[in-house]
Structures are given as structure tokens and as C-alpha cells.
């Protein structure tokens, strides 16, 4: 508006036009002694849905705020295409944010909230653009209301519309679904994905909910301590974690520390707490020495008697059985005294006959096993950071025994 605007262009007061991939190059952010983001580099292809996943305090929100311009990096550069945005102000960037608390302007109506961005950029038809954006999120009927008259889910849609109306090159979503209840969250996940496909903009979604990240994003980057632990397609990340942190933060894993004792064809032979297991060489980051063996709970099957065959099995005692509808979750104690989780789909009409205290055998296909470097502390941190996993850890814990955790399957030396 004012003397600069009115001609329907985006060019006002130092606005930087930029198109292309978002590139974060060697970015570090320090707050006093604390390093929130540590030499982070990544490239997000234009038009993709990218998720930054990690526990609170891992630096994901700080990264987002640096892309928005709300924080300036201590070192490194942030670019969109070939345009260097480092050091520019938030209002100069073709980037908009959907804030965690929505941050709607309380004194403005919904329509004026959405029209705020276009008005500032001097768009002549700001209100028309706002109405279109409200239609996209199906909020047209509430355009005349004030934010305080809307429910959380409705405010969330308005916040999305307020950011989208500007057609930013990159849209940043800072845990936008965190305050919604489970059902609404699932619904909004689908809707956000639809909107992203429809408008074709780059979305960067920050979340600590691994399921949310996996269902929505094309690419997930798992962050911890200001660094990216692993990045890739959700399926690849889940199937083959490269660190024990990822193994436990993205879903749950049964882990056990052991030693590589040899090699047999395409497999590594590993001894974990007196049991010999196999890991395909292609699925292990470690080739010799200390290793953490891992297998996902749903890849493990429970048998009443010792299975015949390859020997990827271990004796265990049932600790807890919980029926969850689709599946039954077993918590079992393996030979070394630590607890594993096993999920079995409820395919049969026959009711499960296992009770706590029963002796069973666990079996898995060695092709599903993976090997990661030993790092107990990180694995524990991931387990505790993920609410779902933390809950089952609590269930499994018997008294205050510190090693009664799925991640603490350590070799007694």
C-alpha cells in the first residue's frame, strides 16, 4: 500500500523475487554457548513436501525460523534458487510461515487476516485474493468473524490460507497440527497434502510426530542435536535406519548391542548376548567390531516352539499382551533380560492364547535385520523423545530396573 504499492506487483520495499530449490548451506546457529543448529546443509527440490522431524530442542524450529528470516544464522547461507536470502528481513523474503499457535491477528476479521499479506504487497485485489484463499481451505462462511470466535481447527485453516494467499516460493509449517485432537489432525494431514499438490508450492513441515512426517512428506529429514541424522523417502528411512536414534525415533525398534564375529556370503554374523544373528551386509552401516543389531517389532513373529531353519531366533518370556484391535502388541523379555516389542496382526478369528509368563520363541527373517553404530545414549534419547515409544517403555519397565527397556539390550562384558 501507500506510495510504493497499488500497481499489483510484488515489488515493494526490498522484496526479493526468488524461484527454485531451497538450499541451506553450512548453516550454524548459536545462542550463547548453545549450538541449536550445527553446520546444516540440505537442498529441498522446488514443489516438494519436505518434513523436518525431531524431538523438541533438536533445532528444527530454529532452522525453519532462519529460512523465514525470523532468526539470522551465525554462519552459513540460505538460498532460494540462485538468490541469497541470508541477512534479509522476513518481509523481504518470498517465504511465509504457518505458526504453531496460528498467530492470527486478534483485532482483524478472518478476511482481513488473510488479506493482510496481499495488502502489504500492494495487491490491488487483496480482498478477492483473500476470498479465493479462504475458499481453498473451505472457510468462506466464517470470513466476517474474529479469530477468537473460531475453533482450533478453523484457526489452523485460516493460518494456512493467510500464508498460502501470498503464493510464497516456500511455505513453512511449524508444527501446525500440534494443538489439534487426533481425529482432526489426521483430517488436516490429508487436507494439507491435497492443498500442497493443488498449489504445487514447496512445503517445509516441522514436526515431532513421526507418523505425521511419514504420511505427508516426500522427503523426511530426521534431526537431532542440530544435525540431520538421516534424510530420505519415508519408506527407505523406516526400512533401513542408519543410526540407532533414527531406528527408535522413526517408529520403534528392537535393538541389541553386539560384536561382528565374521562374514558368511552376503551376511554379517553378529553375536548379541550369546545369540548369533545375521545382518545382510547391504543393510549394515558397520562392517566389523561393535555393532547395534536391530529389527522392527512387526517383522518379528512369536512361535510356541523353537522354529526350524536359519537360526535367527531367540528364546523369550511374555511380559505383557495388549490387544489394540488391528494388532496385538506383545512385550517379551529376551535371554539377555531386556524387553522387546512384537506386533502381530490379528488375522485369525482365534483369540491369542499367550499370557504373561509364557515361554516363547521369537523369529525373524534375517533380511529384515539392520546394523547401526553403537550409541546407547542416542537410542535412549530417541525412545524417550517419542511419546508413543516412551509409553510402551513405561509399560515394560518393571519397577525401577534401569535396563528393562527395549533399547538397552547390552552385552554383559
Amino acid at each position, binding site marked *: 500500500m501507500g506510495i510504493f504499492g497499488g500497481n499489483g506487483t510484488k515489488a*515493494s*520495499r526490498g*522484496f526479493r523475487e526468488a524461484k527454485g530449490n531451497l538450499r541451506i548451506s553450512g548453516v550454524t546457529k548459536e545462542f550463547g554457548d548453545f549450538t541449536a543448529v550445527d553446520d546444516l546443509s540440505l537442498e529441498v527440490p522446488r514443489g516438494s513436501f519436505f518434513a523436518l522431524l525431531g524431538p523438541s530442542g533438536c533445532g528444527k524450529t530454529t532452522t525453519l525460523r532462519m529460512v*523465514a*528470516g*525470523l532468526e539470522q544464522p551465525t554462519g552459513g547461507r540460505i538460498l532460494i534458487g540462485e538468490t541469497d536470502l541470508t541477512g534479509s*528481513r*522476513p*518481509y523481504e523474503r518470498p*517465504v*511465509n*510461515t504457518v*505458526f*504453531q*499457535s496460528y*498467530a*492470527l*491477528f*486478534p*483485532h*482483524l476479521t478472518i478476511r482481513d487476516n488473510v488479506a*493482510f*499479506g496481499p495488502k*502489504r*504487497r500492494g495487491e490491488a485485489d487483496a480482498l478477492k485474493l483473500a476470498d479465493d484463499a479462504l475458499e481453498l481451505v473451505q472457510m468462506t462462511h466464517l470470513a466476517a468473524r474474529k479469530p477468537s470466535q473460531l475453533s482450533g481447527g478453523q484457526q489452523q485453516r485460516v493460518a494456512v490460507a*493467510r*500464508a498460502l494467499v*501470498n503464493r510464497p516460493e516456500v511455505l513453512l509449517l511449524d508444527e501446525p497440527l500440534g494443538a489439534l485432537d487426533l481425529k482432526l489432525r489426521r483430517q488436516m494431514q490429508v487436507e494439507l497434502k491435497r492443498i500442497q499438490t493443488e498449489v504445487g508450492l514447496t512445503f517445509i513441515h516441522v514436526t515431532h510426530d513421526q507418523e505425521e512426517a511419514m504420511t505427508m512428506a516426500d522427503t523426511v529429514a530426521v534431526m537431532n542435536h542440530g544435525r540431520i541424522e538421516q534424510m530420505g523417502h519415508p519408506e527407505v528411512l523406516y526400512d533401513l535406519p542408519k543410526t540407532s536414534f533414527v531406528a527408535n525415533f522413526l517408529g520403534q525398534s528392537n535393538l541389541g548391542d553386539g560384536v561382528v564375529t565374521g562374514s558368511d556370503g552376503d551376511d554379517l554374523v553378529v553375536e548379541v548376548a550369546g545369540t548369533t544373528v545375521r545382518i545382510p551386509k547391504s543393510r549394515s552401516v558397520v562392517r566389523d567390531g561393535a555393532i547395534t543389531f536391530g529389527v522392527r517389532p512387526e517383522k518379528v513373529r512369536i512361535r510356541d516352539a523353537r522354529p526350524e531353519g536359519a537360526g535367527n531366533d531367540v528364546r523369550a518370556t511374555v511380559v505383557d499382551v495388549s490387544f489394540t484391535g488391528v494388532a496385538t502388541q506383545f512385550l517379551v523379555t529376551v535371554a539377555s533380560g531386556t524387553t522387546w516389542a512384537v506386533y502381530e496382526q490379528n488375522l485369525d478369528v482365534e483369540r491369542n492364547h499367550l499370557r504373561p509368563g509364557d515361554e516363547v520363541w521369537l523369529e525373524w527373517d534375517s533380511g529384515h535385520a539392520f546394523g547401526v553404530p553403537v550409541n546407547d545414549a542416542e537410542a535412549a534419547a530417541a525412545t524417550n523423545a517419542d511419546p508413543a515409544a516412551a509409553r510402551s517403555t513405561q509399560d515394560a519397565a518393571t519397577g525401577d530396573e534401569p535396563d528393562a527397556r527395549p533399547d538397552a539390550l547390552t552385552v554383559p562384558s
Partner: protein
Amino acid sequence: MTVASAHVAGGGTTHADPAPGGGPRKRSWTAYLLLLPGGLWLLLFFVVPLVQLFTVSLQSGFPGYPGYYYRDVNVGNYATALTEFAGHFGRSLLYAGLATVFAFILAYPLAYAMAFKAGKWRGVMMICVIAPFFTSFILRTIAWRQILADDGPVASTLNFLHLLPGGHITETWMAVVAGLTYNFLPFMVLPIYASLERADARVIEAGGDLYANGFTTFRTVTLPMSMPGVIAGTLLTFIPAAGDYVNADLLGSDRSTKMVGNVIESQFFKVLGGFPVAAALSFTLMALILAMVFLYIRRFGTEELL
């Protein structure tokens, strides 16, 4: 009415299911009982004296017996108040208005700094704002007489620079307005600070994120969001300032800077037979302020205030 519903829900389920019988909700007397002490207090010490004052404002004096009155409907008291003391009313509203504007200009940046920039100094600044309340209002106003005195630092500096036409600050409107501004400044700072402090920092960031630069964000987001505090602050400054007489008494002159408060004071305590006119003056001032406040809130207020 959470009090009421909590009372009804004695035993049984705590879920907010609609009443199974669909009958009307039972009314609880708890809320009214809680209102009772305050209500009685207001009735005894506000409503009754107000009615009493109103009847006094319509009384007439016994001819030949100054100081004795009889019940009457003497509207002449109001005529006297409005004609003879019109200048005092105008001066009161003008001085209070000026003091409110100056207090706002001083208070907003201070409150803004306290809310957003002070960091660890916030507590110290808060104490500095509140600390004057620990000494007497009269004493502090007398101290201002020293500060603004002809041979004091302010007046002598201004005189040296030939910036003070009359040569004095005390005994002029400047001293009265300065005193009013000073005395009511905390009432302006605190509500503005409270509304800024409560404002979500993310909302202000959102202004920047949506292409508004620093000044535009302040104009379109921060200032509107702090309006409830600004309105409360201006009312808390203007209303008592308009009725104040201590500042005019201690800092002003006997002739040219008298406010309505001073007239009421002298009519009540110094003029024999002045009671009805003093009461009429009080009522007129109250009506004027109420009308101005109503118009002000209608123009600038949020829906929460009306």
C-alpha cells in the same frame, strides 16, 4: 457461571452430557451470595451518598440563615455551576486532556521497552514505575514545586535560553499539567504494559512474515493489539486528572489555573452556603466525564468494553 454448574454437579458423572430429563438447569445461589458483600458495600458507600449528594444539589439556603438548607428542586444551582464556573470546567477538561496526551507519549515507549526490550531489567523498571506510590501524593507534588521553582534547574535553564516567555513555570498551566502528567503516569504505563506483555510475540512476528516492515507492523499489528491497554490507561489518567485539585492548588496560581476540583473544594469548605452549588458542580463534572468517556469508547473502544 462455572460456579453454578459446579454446584449442581454434586455426585454422579462429571461429563458435560446434556441433562437426561432435558429440564431447565437449577439456579444456584452461590454466585449471588458471593456478590452480596461487594454489592452491600457499593450500596452503602456509593449509591446512598450519591443519592444524598443529588438531593443536596437541588436544595436552597434559608434566607438570612447562611449554612442552613431546606429540601427543594432548585435547578438554579446547576445554572450557577454552568455559568459562573464554565471556565473552570473547560480548564479541567483541557488540563486533563493535555496530561493524558503527554502521559501517553511518555508511557507507550516505556511500556514497549519494558515488554519487549528490557530483558533482565524488566523487574527494575517495574519497581521504578511503582516506587513513587510508596511516598505521599502531596509530598511528591510539593517536591515538583521545588523542581519547577524559578531558581530551580528547569526554569533557570529555560530562562537562560530565553525559552520561557513569562519567566515562571510554577503558578502557570505548565506546572499544573506537568504535575498531573507526573502523578498519573503509572496509571498509563501499567495497563499498556500489561496489554503489550500479554500480546503473543508470534503474532507480531507474523506481521513481518507477511511483508510488513517494522513500522508497518507496529502500526497495523502491535498498536491495535495494545488498544485495550491504551484505552484503560487514558481513562485511568483522564478521569482522576479532570477531578484533581491538589496539583492546581500546589503548583498553579490562585487566579488563572483553578480547576473544577478547586472550586468544589472551596465551595464545600470555605464558602458559607456553598454546599448545593458544590454538589451541583460535582454532578455536572460526573455527567461531563461520563459523556466524554462514552463517546471515546464508542469511537476507539473494543467490543469488550461496551
